[in-house]
């Protein structure tokens, strides 16, 4: 799960690179970012549960 979260953050990092310097996301990029952020929240929640059990 650690890697999954890191990789999701990496995909978000790539969006930042592709939209530099103003980071004005188009519709497709917004949808992709939203999906990645949702995944990240789930991955962090799972990580919390696994590590603190």
């Amino acid at each position, binding site marked *: 799960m650690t*890697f999954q979260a890191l990789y999701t953050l*990496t*995909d978000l*990092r790539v969006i930042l690179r*592709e939209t*530099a*310097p*103003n980071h004005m996301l188009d519709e497709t990029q917004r949808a992709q970012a939203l999906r990645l952020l949702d995944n990240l929240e789930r991955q962090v929640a799972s990580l919390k549960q696994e590590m603190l059990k």
Partner: protein
Amino acid sequence: MRCGMGIEARQVNELFINIDPIQAGGRLTADAMKAVIAYGDGYSVCDNCRKPNRLDYISKPPIAEFHRDVAAWLNMDSVRTVPGARRGFQAVANTYIKKGDPVLLTSLSHYTEFLAIEETGGIAREIPHDPAHKITADATAMKIEEVMREFGRVPVLAFIDHVDYQYGNMHDVKAIAKVAHQYDIPVLYNGAYTVGILPVDGTDLGVDFVVGSGHKSMAAPAPSGVLAATKERSAEVFRTTTIEGDVTKRKFGIKEPEMMGCTLMGATLIGMMASFPHVKERVKHFDRELENNRMVLEALLSVSGTKILSEYPRNHTLTRVDTIASFDSVAESHKKRGFYFSGALEEKGIVGVIPGATKVWKFNTYGATTKQAAFLADAFVTIATDNGLILNK
């Protein structure tokens, strides 16, 4: 934000459009970033190293397959990974050059090719470029004849850059290699700015070696690169060790002296491997990169007095411009002098132009999206008009 004591997290490519001429093709793909996260430990790719204990034989991760794939992609017989293109030059130079041997390179060659020759005691002889800053087959033939008159023999090796680092000009390697081979001179193709950027076919070019740079053009971490060879030359440059210890009688299997055994053993190799499928795909779309480059150059040329010093129309995205009669004329009276230009670019979110440079400078648009290229084009024009420069009608 820091990632270690005294080490700021680097966010250049997240916060800015980076047009640094040497950094454009080496930016990592998402897969390379992910692979580097997992394989950052020193000998990380060596977990499953089995006999005959050599990097290019490891099958998990698929390093052996990667070597075969890169050789096929370059249409050469064999490949080794090396810690940067310069180590590829060095391996070939060490194999063929002896003290006092004449060696051919060009008046636009990278300094590391000179150093590779110097280390062997060879003597560098440059093929001069023509007034358009191009290296031609005719100039190559003339230089070989000149070397023969001077040394009584032909050069033992020729280093030819397909695209040079000074102008980003594309040179006719195929014709040059044909001439060199008429004199039995092996040819090393320097693809530091082409392998991983545009299609390269070593067999079609008729060269003996192809050298590429991972960190310059294959979306890989530094230092990384590839050295490919024909079958005939592989036996020479990738020869295996024969040395034996006199006390222990130890021998060292199939290790290769020019590679110093194994080469890239961790994040560098895995990064290059992870990017490779994307790199194979991106070289097919180099025309899009040239189109973005053209958009930026047209904007620069719209500023009266700006000249393109590289060949034009462009065959590569690395471009040298002369703005003495445009942006530099502002520097003369600006309170920030020449730094106004890079400062204005940075304020707009653009980096990579040498701070203070307003006379002759280079940039590379490779990897910019079309939106980013349009942004760059607009930024140059806006900085010009903001500073009272005239736009061509």
